[in-house]
């Protein structure tokens, strides 16, 4: 895992429209924005529109006189702008705000990114991880991820509880990390200073 920090130098390069830094910034936060927005919205067009508008506003704020003053708060700022754009989307589409306390909890459904993070290489890496799992665990994940069956029912059928499912996903994710870090694929690299 490559660690970097959103520090003063990074923010300065963004303000100066340094291309590699902008590319990194967009790639890094776009992934997080899509994950966040897809957890709330099904339509990929709306997700793209909101992400695009979020970036526009963030870049505009960077260029303004008051701007973003605390580089370590850059991520929180992006999230906050996204929340505002999302609120506006809900109001304009007549859905009302989804962030009220009175709003009922969303239905418990697995994140669906509509293939956003899928690639041939990554799929094959995941296939290796799945092949190492016991058949029961493979079928459990198939029922949840692919067949999108209701999780409580699937857990009952397989004689497991929700914590088993979380631990299974956690272990599989860690096994997948080994292949993923070896390949070094598809991760936005921080630009060299």
């Amino acid at each position: 895992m490559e660690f970097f920090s959103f520090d003063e130098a990074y923010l300065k390069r963004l303000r100066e429209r340094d291309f590699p830094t902008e590319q990194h910034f967009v790639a890094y936060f776009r992934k997080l924005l899509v994950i966040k927005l897809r957890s709330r919205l099904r339509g990929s067009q709306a997700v793209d529109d909101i992400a695009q508008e979020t970036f526009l506003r963030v870049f505009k704020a960077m260029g303004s006189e008051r701007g973003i003053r605390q580089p370590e708060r850059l991520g929180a700022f992006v999230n906050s702008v996204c929340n505002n754009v999302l609120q506006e989307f809900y109001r304009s589409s007549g859905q009302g705000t989804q962030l009220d306390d009175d709003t009922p909890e969303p239905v418990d459904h697995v994140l669906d990114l509509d293939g956003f993070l899928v690639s041939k290489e990554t799929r094959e890496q995941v296939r290796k991880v799945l092949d190492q799992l016991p058949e029961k665990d493979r079928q459990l994940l198939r029922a949840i991820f692919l067949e999108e069956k209701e999780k409580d029912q699937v857990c009952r059928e397989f004689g497991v509880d929700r914590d088993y499912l979380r631990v299974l996903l956690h272990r599989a994710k860690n096994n997948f990390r080994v292949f993923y870090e070896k390949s070094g694929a598809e991760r936005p690299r921080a630009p060299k200073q």
Partner: protein
Amino acid sequence: MEHLQAIQLKAAERYVLGELPSDLRERYEEHFFSCVECAEELSLAAAFVENSRAAMGSEPVMPPVRLPVSAAQRPAASGWLGAFLRPSFAVPVFAALLLLVTYQTFLVIPRLKTTATQSVGALATAAPQALASFSLITADSRGGEPLALTVAPGQPFSLYFDIPPAGNYSSYICEIVNSAGAAEFSLNISTEQAKNAVQLLIPSSSLGPGKHAVVVRGLGTQGSASGSATEVARYPFTLAFSQ
């Protein structure tokens, strides 16, 4: 949400499974937008789910593995099977089976031995008992504190953890080491056992309070000298006894 809370909550997994209530979800989002490590964890979890769908979507469907259904749920037998279940045939057959079972139960008495794992020897017990079990699976997460375990004095407990699949090892050595790094227990784990979560039974009072770690080393990769061991996982934990 603090980073440690996100790790302990398995927030990345709960997020992709859609299990976080809205207030926790928002707090986690505020956190992972600012935390590179948690952003990576979430991205990995999401990538794994997405690519699992793609990988499994192109596979043939295997017969489902399900729990056995109760007799009340089974459909009624018909045809040639129904003939075997007619009372005139079934009653004598079942009576003979009952005699056989009675003979086995009362004249051939099996000796029961239960062993929790192969790690610290066999545990003979005459009756089932609840066992405190602790997962070390998240203990190696970067940035996390060692897990704090509290057990009742004089009681056994179990630890379970994963062995990463990386490396072409012929087997593994698993040790429990104390804070000075000295091995307190050592056992061998086969590659077959390493495919699933490994569970260690720790006999009562065999570990003292304080800091310990489960250290897993791989043995005998291809091209390396036989007997060389490479550390592949380390799970620190702190043990305390309840009053």
